[in-house]
Every structure is written in structure tokens, then in C-alpha cells.
């Protein structure tokens, strides 16, 4: 009975089927299902407590699902968890490193836990140190590192065994903008190298920027799933352009309302708000009309339809509530 059981994955990197998990009375995850193609970045977006970490914990074999199963690179979560672990790299939400060991000692130890040994291990540790930009601090204790550096080592650990799939659970939580930028860039690099990334975040900007597909979670369920464009179209949201003028706003309202592609023009506190379907087409027309009226536009703020609006539309609550 040691035969490895696999599911029919149709070349999917991750296939999640009807996962359920409860903690006592609390239903943390209720029937979550989604598919992830190889080599893509798949985002799980949702507010704190939506069930993202519980889902990823089940997919990392840390929690046993009450119901349902998942296949990671063809290996069943329920029936072959060791095989799942061997193709998986996990970047936990909190930094999980031995602070009293150096970066190199941490990577070496974790490499051994992934089965690396000898010269292969040493070489891979050096490669990962290079990859995360910490070769010059390799022998420094992690306790002396900045938050951003620790985050990089935290990610480096998950890359040691060259996993096919990597889970990143809110890897940018609580760090400075520069480190955040570095991490986002490294995620894209991983994708370019052919890794499949499952990325959880509650920052819609990150999901929007990084992910090929996004599943929006709330109260343990996936309430919407698709590409960014598909999700936005799902709620029919339009681009909003906020403009300020050097004259009274009432002078342009009628003219702009008649511009092709404009859905609606309104004004509040001296600022004009224009709703359009395509800002790239409409904005030059607005400038042209203003010039004809000898009105100067002093500022422009374009707000693309975003996932925040999608979440608001679907749940009636803001994403960060």
C-alpha cells in the first residue's frame, strides 16, 4: 500500500478541490477550489481572516483538510504529503529563521532538511546567497540583519532545493518600501525562471502587479477568480479621472459631458470627476476641449478600476476593513 496516489491534474501545477477546514465552530475554509497553471503567479487576495493562510497551510501539509484534496505537481496532498513537500518551497508569513545562526548556517541547515548534502549543498547555498544579495553578509548572524534582509533570507530558504512550486504567504507584510520592491522583483524573477508561485496578500496593488490569476477570498470562500481584467470587468467598473482647473468647474461641465467616451461628469469641492471607459482615449479629448475654452488643467489623477472596487462590489466592505 505504498503506491503513490496522484490525481488527474491535466498538467496543472496546483489543483485544489473543495478544501474545507474548521477550528471548532469556526469554519476557516469552506469549499475552496482553484487551479494554477505551471509557471504562473497565482494570487490569493483577501482581508485578514479571509482564510488565505489556512488554505496555504493545508497546501503546505501543515494542516490536514477536513474535506477535499489538492494536487501539487501531480502529488496528492492527502496520500503523498512527502512528495508534495519535496516539490514545494514555503515562504511563511512570519520570518522563520534561527536568529542566533548566520545566514549561511541557516541556509546550510535548511538545505540539509531538503536533502542536500556535501559540495552540492555548499554550492547551492552560495548561489542562493548571491540570488538574495547577501553574499557579503553570509557569515553575519541573522539577529543583526534588518527586517528586509531577514525577509530575503526567509525567501532564500524556500529556494534552496529549486522547488517547482513556491508558496509565499504575505511576504511583504510589515517591511519598508525598498525591501518590498526587492521582494516583488524577486517574485517576478522566480516566475521568469519557470517556478509556479502561489502568492497570498491583502495588498491589492501587489496582486494586481504580480499575479496572472487572482482568487479573491472572504470568510473562507473564493468569491471571485480570474485575471485582473476579468475581475474588473466582472463588476463593470470604469476609470475615474479627477481633475482640478484654474477656473470654476462649471465652465467645462457641459462641454466635457459631450466628449465621446465620457460616461459621467460631476463636480465636488472645486474638483471635476469624469468617469470613462478608456482613459487613454478620452483624456486627450478632455485636454483639447479645455484648451478651446481657454481653461487650464492644473492637475490630473487617473484611478484605474481596481480590485479594491471589485471587493467592495462583491462584499459591500473595503478590502482593508
Amino acid at each position, binding site marked *: 500500500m505504498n503506491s503513490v496516489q496522484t490525481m488527474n491534474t491535466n498538467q496543472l501545477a496546483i489543483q485544489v478541490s473543495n478544501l474545507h477546514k474548521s477550528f471548532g465552530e469556526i469554519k476557516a475554509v469552506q469549499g475552496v477550489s482553484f487551479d494554477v497553471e505551471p509557471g504562473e503567479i497565482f494570487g490569493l487576495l483577501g482581508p485578514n481572516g479571509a482564510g488565505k493562510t489556512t488554505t496555504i497551510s493545508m497546501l*503546505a*501539509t*501543515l494542516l490536514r483538510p477536513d474535506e477535499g484534496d489538492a494536487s501539487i505537481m501531480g502529488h496528492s496532498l492527502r496520500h503523498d504529503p*512527502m512528495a508534495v*513537500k*519535496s516539490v*514545494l518551497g*514555503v515562504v*511563511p508569513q*512570519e*520570518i*522563520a*529563521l*534561527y*536568529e*542566533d*545562526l548566520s545566514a549561511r*548556517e541557516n541556509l546550510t*541547515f*535548511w538545505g*540539509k*532538511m*531538503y*536533502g542536500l548534502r556535501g559540495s552540492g549543498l555548499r554550492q547551492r547555498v552560495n548561489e542562493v546567497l548571491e540570488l538574495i544579495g547577501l553574499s557579503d553578509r553570509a557569515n553575519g548572524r541573522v539577529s543583526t540583519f534588518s527586517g528586509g534582509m531577514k525577509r530575503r533570507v526567509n525567501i532564500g*530558504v524556500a529556494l534552496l532545493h529549486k522547488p517547482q512550486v513556491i508558496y509565499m504567504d504575505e511576504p511583504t507584510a510589515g517591511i519598508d518600501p525598498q525591501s518590498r520592491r526587492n521582494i516583488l522583483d524577486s517574485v517576478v524573477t522566480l516566475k521568469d525562471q519557470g517556478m509556479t508561485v502561489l502568492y497570498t496578500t491583502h495588498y491589492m496593488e501587489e496582486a494586481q502587479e504580480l499575479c496572472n490569476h487572482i482568487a479573491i477570498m472572504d470568510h473562507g470562500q473564493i468569491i471571485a477568480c480570474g485575471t485582473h481584467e476579468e475581475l474588473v470587468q466582472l463588476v463593470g467598473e470604469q476609470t475615474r479621472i479627477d481633475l482640478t482647473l484654474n477656473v470654476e468647474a462649471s465652465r467645462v461641465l457641459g462641454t466635457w459631458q459631450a466628449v465621446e467616451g465620457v460616461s459621467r461628469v460631476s463636480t465636488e469641492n472645486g474638483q471635476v470627476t469624469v468617469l470613462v471607459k478608456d482613459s487613454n482615449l478620452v483624456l486627450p479629448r478632455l485636454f483639447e476641449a479645455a484648451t478651446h475654452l481657454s481653461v487650464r488643467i492644473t492637475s490630473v489623477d487617473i484611478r484605474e478600476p481596481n480590485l479594491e472596487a471589485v471587493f467592495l462590489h462583491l462584499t459591500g466592505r473595503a478590502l482593508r476593513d
Partner: protein
Amino acid sequence: MKILDIAFKDMLRSFRSMFALVFMFGIPLLMTGMFYIMFGNIASGGEFSLPKTHVIIANLDEGGPKFQTSAKNIPGGKQARTMGELVVNVLQSKEMADLIQVSLAPSAESARASVDGQASQVAIVIPADFSKKFADSNKQAIIEFYQDPTLTIGPSIIRSILNRFMDGMAGVKIAINVFMDESPESDYYLTGDVVQQYLDISLVQTEDLAGTLLDERAPTAAPPSSQTSGSQTSENMLLRIVGPIMGGMMIFYAFFTGTSTAQSILKEEEERTLPRLFTTPTPQAVILTGKFVAVFLTVLVQVVVLIIAARLIFSIQWGAPVPVAMAAAGTVFIASSFGIFVNSLLKSAKQGGAVFGGVLTMTGMLGMISIFAINSPTAARLGNTVSLLVPQGWAIRGLLQAMNGAPVGDVGLTVLVMLVLSAAFFVIGVWRFSKRYV
């Protein structure tokens, strides 16, 4: 292999912690050093007195060849008709009176029963053929020494006195043999004179007869700088006191090390490294085993280093290698498994503070009662019983047995109890941790 990787990682972390190093090695040696200095000062000039040791003697010696020695050279000034009487007279002499309280028993059984019943601390049984065997160049004269195994200083003093006495008598025996080998039969009648002269010389080499016999009794003697023998005596006395204290400290802190090292399981859970370990292709049983091995190895290193360091720094005599190794191994197992057991009862590492401050200190102090009560026979008896209620008490018992030269069988019995307790602690601890993680 991964088990050792995890164990060595934990050990590296432990030995990198200055706090852990101070607790593991610094404090036990420092505490012992303080006692060493304190008792060293007393021994070299201060007032210090030991309680009397109750000795019961069954002198069954029926006598043998007669020889005379000057009464003035026998402690107590009594004539002795047999070698057995000579031993009794030495121990009953007024020079020994402030250290030994002697009573006589009619038989060997009653003398041993007195020790078993804790009415006496040492029984000395002089066999019926003691004088005869002494006079026979081909036989060995043996005195039976029967002591309360829980006591250290008093019995050690008595043993030392007897050893010194027997060494002197062995010299007499050699003198007789040499004389008879070298002399014609016509001169055999002079044997008594040879013995007489040897006894006079050997017993009167120093005017301080009690000082000669009382190897342990230096505190009231002249300052060490003026007498070499006094200095050595002080040191012996000091080590008899400091040795058990060092052993006690080692065991006390070995239990702390066992518990604090085992606490790394809970700490790793809170630091999130344990869940991360569980995401690697390493079975959870292997991970936990690695953590347990780390506990055993860390305590082992601590115990070995302390034993060697105490020997080098304080010249502590731990006893014969085999019994000491057995006692040390028992200590390692029981301290480690107790640590695993205690931590398995905790929900978080934060609760460890209360455990360290409360449970380990209380049980450690209870376990050490037998050491700090050795100067009081009544307290020692009570302490010995109470200390065995806690695992530290068994570890201390084993170590003291080894230090006192107890037979391997006796030490082995104590170690066996320790191993049984270790197995129980370990099984419960592993079961509880496995229930939580595996």
C-alpha cells in the same frame, strides 16, 4: 542523518548562548568555588567541628602470638592483648573522643544491625582470626567496614584512621618476615624485640599521634604553611566537603539544562521554525527525535565537562571510573528525559519561567538535602528519604555512592532506578509531544 543535523543545530545554538553557557558551566563551578573558598578558609584557620561519628565495634579477635609494645605509644595508654584490642584502643582513645563515639557489640550481626537500624553510622567487625592471620606471613588480616551508604564525611574519617593503622601494622608484619628470613633460627627469640622496636618507631614518628592517625582532622592543626602534613590534611578535608557539593551543583544545573534545552521545541514552535521544518520533506518523528537527541547530547557535554573541570580546578575525587561513568550516564538520562517530560506539560515557552523558578528549584533543593545534611546524621537520614522523592535525589545518590567507593552493584541499582524513571518521563513526554505535532 537528519536527526543529527537537527541535534547539532540545537547544540550549536545552545553553546552559542552566553546565558546558557553561564548556567551550564559557570554557575556550578562558581558556586563550588565559593564553597571551596569558604571551607578552605575554615580549614586553614577558622573554627570548624564535625559531629561525632557513632562507631560500633564487634571485636571477635581470639588472639594470636603475643608481642609487647610500650603502653605509652598506644592511644589511650592501654595494654592490648590482641590486635583487635589494639584497634579498639586506638578508636577509643581520648585523642579520638571528639570525633568518634565508640560502642561495643557482642557479634558481627548485632553490629551490622545497629547500622541498618541507623543507631550507628559505621560498624567495624574484627574477625576471630585477625591476630592469627596478622602473624601468619601467608595470610591477610582483614577488618570488615560496614557503613551507612548515605553518609560521607564521618565514615570517611573512620576509614582513613583504620587505613593508616592497618598500613602501620602491615609494616610490622613485613618487619617480622624480613627478620625471620634473614636471621638464624637461634635468633627467633628476638622477634618480640623487633616488633617492639618497629611499633615504637612507627607509632612515635610524630609526637602528634592523633594528627598522624587522623588523616582528615586538620582544621585545628598548625597553619598549612608550617606543616606539610597539615596542609595535605586540610585539603583532603576540604575535598570531602566540596566534592559532594560540586556533584550536587552539577546535577542541579544538569536538570536546568535538560529542561531549557527541551524547551527549544516550544520555542521553535513560537519562532515558527518548527512549522517550517514540518514543511520540509522530513518526517515529523525525525524532527522530534532530533530535538530529543539534542537534549541528551547537551546534558552529556555539560556533565562530562563539569566532571573534568572540577577534577582539574578543585582536584575533586569522583571515584572509580566505572561507577562514576554509570552515575553520570544515569544523570544525563534522567535530567534529559525529565526536561522533555516537563516541557511536554507546558503550552508555551512563556510558562517555562514558572517551571524554571518553581518546579526545578524546588525539586533540585529537595534532591540536594542529602548533601547539605551530611554533617547531621538525623537530618541526613531524613534528607536522604525526602530527596528520593524527586529525580534529582536519585542522581545525587548515585554520584555520592560512586564518590564513596560503593560497589558497582550498589551504584548500578541506583542507576537502574534512574533509568526506569527516565524511561517513564521520556515515554510520557514523547507521547504528549507526538500527540501535539505528529
